[in-house]
């Protein structure tokens, strides 16, 4: 077990170093001078030069990279150019929106997709299957920002059941926070649930063709009992992989929905920071996103070992 953790930790560090290098290099070669962006196109040259000096932009790239990494390791984050506060503070504040949003969307995805996918597989090529497949095809085809707008029009504008956008902050009460995230979570979950339902269906169908399911039926189990007792857990092994990818995706890729619903999430922060050439925010946020993805993959691996006893014997 310790060796397993050690290996994992090494991968974690290597991934972060790789990500930081890529982010740093990309920001290096991107056109656009942060000092110029901050002071506006009409600023005089002396002021721009002074700001460049103050921001340390005149130092060699290697020095700036090492300083940045040194800061991350010792926990002293850089200052945001445009907000004037520590990037760590900014990112943590935004994570309090993005992480709960992603969790809610993932929860909805799983609750909707797994039962539908399993049901579709058990009714293979019959009415239930055809309906689930048709609806999921629609779910994949609908762009989530458009679906988000529809949700706002219907539930917020017409019915007035939910807020149309914005986020009150968790200080206003957990329920208010959840209700502000509810519609965006549905908008995000629709596509993911459609994908996961289709994937679950085909995973279950594959397992239903396995010899051990026939063995279970030969023991006298009904179709249903063989499905739930023997097929589902085996089918979960590939399904969990997809769930991990989807959750990573939700954590990093909610920028469109955050914009539609005016949510102060991490995606929106990165989006604005890129537009403003707010280099410290962009690079720290991306490294933190990468860290989250690696951590999710680690959790997925732990789930594998829990579902499939064959894996415990090997890697761990």
């Amino acid at each position, binding site marked *: 077990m310790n060796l397993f953790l050690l290996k994992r930790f090494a991968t974690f560090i290597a991934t972060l170093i790789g990500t930081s290098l890529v982010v740093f290099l990309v920001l290096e070669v991107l056109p656009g001078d942060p000092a110029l962006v901050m002071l506006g196109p009409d600023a005089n040259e002396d002021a721009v030069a002074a700001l460049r000096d103050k921001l340390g932009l005149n130092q060699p790239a290697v020095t700036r990279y090492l300083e940045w990494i040194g800061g991350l390791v010792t926990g002293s984050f850089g200052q945001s150019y445009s907000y004037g506060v520590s990037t760590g503070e900014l990112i943590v504040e935004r994570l309090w929106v993005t992480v709960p949003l992603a969790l809610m969307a993932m929860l909805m995805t799983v609750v909707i997709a797994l039962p539908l996918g399993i049901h579709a597989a058990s009714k293979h090529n019959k009415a239930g299957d055809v309906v689930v497949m048709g609806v999921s095809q629609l779910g994949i085809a609908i762009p989530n920002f458009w679906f988000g707008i529809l949700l706002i029009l219907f539930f917020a504008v017409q019915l007035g059941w939910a807020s149309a956008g914005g986020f009150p902050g968790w200080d206003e009460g957990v329920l208010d926070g959840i209700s502000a995230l509810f519609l965006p979570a549905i908008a995000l979950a629709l596509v993911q649930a459609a994908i996961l339902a289709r994937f679950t269906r085909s995973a279950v169908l594959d397992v239903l063709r*396995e*010899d*051990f399911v*026939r*063995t*279970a*039926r*030969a*023991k*006298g*189990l*009904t*179709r249903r009992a063989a499905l739930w*007792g*023997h097929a589902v*857990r*085996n089918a979960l092994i590939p399904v969990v992989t997809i769930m991990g990818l989807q959750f990573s995706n939700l954590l990093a890729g909610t920028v469109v929905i955050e914009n539609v619903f005016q949510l102060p999430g991490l995606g929106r922060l990165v989006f604005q920071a890129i537009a403003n050439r707010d280099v410290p925010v962009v690079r720290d946020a991306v490294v933190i996103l990468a860290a989250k993805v690696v951590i999710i993959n680690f959790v997925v691996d732990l789930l594998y070992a829990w*579902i*499939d*006893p*064959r894996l415990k*014997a090997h890697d761990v």
Partner: protein
Amino acid sequence: MPLLEVENLTVTLATNRGPGDAVRNVAFALDRGETLGLVGESGCGKSITALALMSLLPERARIAGSIRLDGRELTTLGEDQLCGLRGDRMAMIFQEPMTSLNPVQTIGRQVAEPLILHKGMTRAAARERALDLLDRVGLPNPAARLDQFPHQLSGGQRQRVMIAMALACDPDLLIADEPTTALDVTIQGQILDLILDLVEERGMALLLISHDLGVIAETTQRMMVMYGGSVVEAGPTAEVFARMAHPYTRGLFAARPKLGPATETPLATIAGVVPELADLPPGCPFANRCPLMIPPCNDGLPPPLPMGPDHISRCIRARELVASA
């Protein structure tokens, strides 16, 4: 009344090229304590016959004829009642021990499952009984095996687990579909001996399916040779081997590899290939590969010709064949 009576069993499968009869007009009877062998090459309908007996055919398969277990007609029985019989009154051992056990469940749980299902045992009682069963099938260190997973066992050990599982509820009928084909030769004999011991000990009826004439000869009292979905020859095992009253039986016998120093002569084979299900001719299915074929062979499935006590052959030239040998 025999335990198992099969009459005019025909199974039609949906294939890519239209429906085809995988099993045609198969009839036999089997009683408790009897062993019946079913032999033939891949695709001849052996496994489909077995699955038809268990009512576990693929969804789009159609079944005609009659299967009676203890006088009870199975072909018209509802799914619930069939579930009550499977694993309890009739049980099956499959060919592939590597894939026939659930990889994510412990051995103990899988062996205990039919006991909980059919005998209404508690988990603890079923576990106790599973331990006895694993011990009976000769699994080394059975107590430790209960909590192990299939991947921790060898192929032979897994097949012992399959046997324990099949025997859990003391079935009347045991169907073993190529139970030793996937195993090492040294293990094959042990597993066959174990099955025979258990059949004798519990007075079960055994239907043993194999492509291996040697296995059939050593294990069964009666045998059926199957080709193209039909039983082409059937009788007491010793009689069938002594007379071999069908050209296909002779072909199978000649094609078996023999022990001894390597010789220059290649293994004997039967020319041609097994016809596809959708292409089965209306006449004798073996006609297109048969060295003795004459025009009347194609006039319809040859009727069973009595060759001796309880011995039949579906070859119109069977008498000539036996006399010429």
